[in-house]
């Protein structure tokens, strides 16, 4: 076993102790004003020397370090073959600068997962403190999973949820502790050859969340995962699997950030969700990667009879995002909703959207997308609504609005509507505009500065999304928007 730099204190599984909330309100505001406020770097904590590049040997090593069963090792190696065989996508954002040979595919930062914040090496703990995760956990979360580089370094679920039979662990532990259920569902919603980046994730996945909610159980406080990249040229490939059994409910929230480096990192997650009969899953993402991260994520849910799946997808950061949360409506009466908000500033290309595939009758879907581009940023909505034969009386509505804040910025809309059922009713509407001069004039005549007025208009514009977020996240999103608007000329 390699030795790492920080101090590892192993303690029992007692309740989380009071932790230092390092950032005062004043410091917090100071950081806010500097722009991207998640730009700090911890010292290298890797517990073995990480290697750049990808090969079958790297995949074997990841699998063996994790002590995985043979089927997973084979699954990974097969996926690697798919990854190698597939061409890069020709559509969407420019990915030509990704250097797969320069990326670290696996970095282990701690020897052992902590159940107590204090058990983490000091500056890793400091990172979580600065992100406010331990504080949020105390206040309003039912469980927290904190992933640092490739693995989940802290994990905790409230005892009462544990007692109700709710499983909430990191994916690696789930494979060890719940092998049957993992094997039954893993890779069934997003097969390893679904697309090039899903293949990559399937080959080198590490970390992510596993959630199982038993029939009829309502988890009424959100479960949260936070993903942090610290190292330069890191590749983070978390893998999340959520199974909501019949009539259950769960709200899962994820956030992410990374320091700013001069060369790029890659985040390529796969998220699979199974929403069984009558169940409801709400999945909220606030993505705020630094602007040197490629964020190429495949998210897909299968919704069965009368189930409800909701994706709330906020994309504020990253260099390039390509992410289209999908819902396959497989059971009669299933409902799906995607709420997407995308921001692109200087040097950013956010290609987001949503997909709904109606396979069963009387299914409905709603996609609402709001995007804001500024300082030469490019936002895109890319969507698919598909009605398969037999999905009679399917209904879908798509609404996309884009705001372009200056003349260097750009917005694109690529909606696909494919209908094979006479009784299906589908609609799509989109608008693209700038901040209205009369709105700005009105607010400024009431004494607001131009940036403040612009921020207020933009916050109003994305309000249909923010009102669906947990309050803390809505506040955070509004604050981010205000920050991005500073110095903007409408």
């Amino acid at each position, binding site marked *: 076993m390699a030795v790492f730099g920080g101090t590892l204190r192993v303690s029992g599984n007692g309740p989380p102790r009071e932790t230092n909330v390092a950032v005062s309100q004043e410091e917090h505001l100071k950081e806010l004003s500097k722009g991207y406020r998640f730009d700090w770097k911890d010292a290298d904590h890797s517990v073995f020397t990480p290697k750049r590049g990808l090969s079958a040997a790297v995949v074997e090593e990841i699998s063996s370090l994790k002590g995985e069963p043979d089927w997973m090792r084979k699954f990974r190696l097969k996926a690697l073959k798919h990854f190698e065989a597939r061409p890069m996508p020709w559509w969407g954002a420019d990915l030509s600068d990704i250097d797969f040979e320069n990326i670290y595919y696996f970095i282990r930062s701690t020897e052992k997962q902590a159940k107590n914040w204090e058990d983490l090496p000091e500056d890793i703990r400091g990172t979580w403190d600065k992100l406010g995760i331990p504080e949020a956990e105390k206040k309003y979360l039912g469980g927290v999973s904190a992933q640092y580089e490739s693995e989940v370094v802290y994990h905790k679920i409230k005892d009462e949820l544990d007692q109700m039979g709710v499983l909430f662990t990191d994916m690696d532990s789930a494979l060890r502790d719940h092998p049957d259920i993992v094997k039954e569902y893993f890779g069934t919603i997003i097969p390893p050859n679904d697309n090039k980046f899903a293949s990559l994730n399937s080959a080198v996945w590490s970390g992510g969340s596993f959630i199982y909610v038993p029939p009829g159980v309502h988890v009424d406080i959100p479960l949260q995962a936070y993903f942090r990249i610290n190292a330069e040229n890191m590749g983070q490939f978390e893998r999340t699997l959520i199974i909501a059994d019949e009539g259950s409910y769960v709200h899962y929230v994820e956030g992410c950030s990374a320091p700013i480096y001069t060369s790029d990192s890659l985040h390529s997650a796969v998220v699979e969700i199974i929403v069984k009969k009558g169940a409801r899953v709400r999945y909220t993402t606030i993505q705020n990667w630094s602007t040197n991260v490629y964020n190429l994520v495949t998210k897909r849910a299968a919704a069965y009879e009368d189930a409800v799946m909701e994706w709330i997808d906020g994309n504020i950061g990253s260099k390039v995002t390509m992410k289209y949360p999908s819902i396959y409506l497989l059971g009669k009466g299933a409902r799906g909703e995607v709420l997407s908000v995308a921001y692109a500033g200087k040097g950013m290309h956010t290609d987001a959207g949503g997909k709904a595939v109606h396979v069963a009758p009387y299914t409905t879907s709603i996609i609402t997308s709001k995007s804001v581009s500024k300082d030469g940023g490019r936002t895109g909505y890319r969507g698919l609504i598909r009605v398969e034969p037999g999905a009679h009386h399917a209904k879908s509505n798509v609404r996309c609005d884009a705001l372009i804040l200056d*003349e260097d*910025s*750009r917005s694109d*809309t*690529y909606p696909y509507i494919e*209908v*094979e059922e006479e*009784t299906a009713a589908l609609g*799509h509407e989109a608008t693209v505009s700038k901040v209205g001069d009369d709105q700005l004039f009105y607010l400024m005549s009431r004494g607001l500065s131009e940036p403040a007025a612009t921020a207020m208009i933009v916050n109003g514009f994305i309000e249909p999304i923010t009102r669906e977020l947990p309050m803390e996240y809505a506040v955070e999103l509004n604050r981010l928007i205000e920050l991005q608007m500073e110095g903007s000329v409408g």
Partner: protein
Amino acid sequence: MEPATKVQGFDEEALSALSSSTLFVEALRKQALEEFLALPIPSQETEEWRYTDLSDLDLSFAPFAPGGDAESLNRGKILQAAGVVGERAGLQIQRNSEVVSTQLTEGLGAKGVIFGDLDRAAEEHPELVEPHLHALVPTSRTKFTALHGAFRTGGTFLYVPPAVTVELPLQTLTYLDADGAAVFPHTLIVVGQDAEVTFIDRYVSPALSRALSVGITEIHAGAASRVRYVSIQEWGDGVTHLGVQRARTGRDTELRTVAIGFGASLARAEAETELAEPGGFSEMLGVFFADGTQHFDHRSLQDHVAPNCKSDLLYKGALKGESRAVYSGWVHVRPDAQKTDAMQTSRNIVLSDRAKADAIPNLEIEANDVRCGHAASVGPVEEEQVFYLQSRGIRRDEAERLIVFGFFQEVLDRITLEEVRDSVSHAIEQELAGEG
């Protein structure tokens, strides 16, 4: 039905069998043939051809089919096929590969209006034809436009000099009755500054076992001109129709186009407007009705290059039987095109549970001070509307018929030419009455 000539396929030998033309046209043909031989049949792997599969298209068509003499017009019932023809300032008839008749109202020629066979215009007015032919739709665009560039014969050239207003519409009827033939209708319209004209292209054929039409329309609309262009595609069963229409507007030009599609087994129609100078306006209307196993692939582009332009597109279509219709449109606002106002709407009504409709209305916006929107819908006849009409004592089939008419009314109301409106209404009526 006229038998097609024996020559099949498109090669140098077939090209040399065509009657010779001007040096310019000969050079263009030669180059286009090379492009045709070099280019692949567009693959469904590409976004442009995603919904239309031509990989199995057998290109063994006759490259040239004679038109016969003017006498044969009556024998061939061609005039009857032209349908209701209102008052015209000019009428040209092309049968198969040849123009067989051209008429232009007296007086227009004296005003400098040129209307007639494109090949003859290339000889008589090279200064007008050469800078414009294939300037908007280059032969190298696809394998099919290259084929068109190489083997086109006949076609229409219309020139309206600056400040001349042509009150009545001009029309070309392209009539195809040579089974197994390929035809290449080409309409080249050049309109001078401040001029005004209306032009109608009509494509008609009986049902054939197989035929190919690769058409190109190029419209150069000068500054402050007012141009209306209507295309009516009524090919019979068996025809594969691949059409590209592209217009470029000048400063303060007002361009209104209508694309009507009822015919052909497979019809792909691309309509594009480039708003190249400030102040231009482009209206693009589309009406289609697919039945049986027809496959329609409609594509549009509103390309805003210059600032202060406005474009408005409305396509409405109905589907019956096992038909398939795709609408994919693009609004592209280039970085300099500030103050753009662009709208794009595609509405589809599905009347059969075996029909399939797709709509992909895309926006690419690179300027910020713009107003752009799009809307697309696909749906059945609404039950509430049927119920309402039934509750007023109207039979179900009649109620559905009325609702479909109501659906099309929005676009019909915007077609300013009464006779075109009437003939479209009539065609919708027939489609609704027909089986499948």
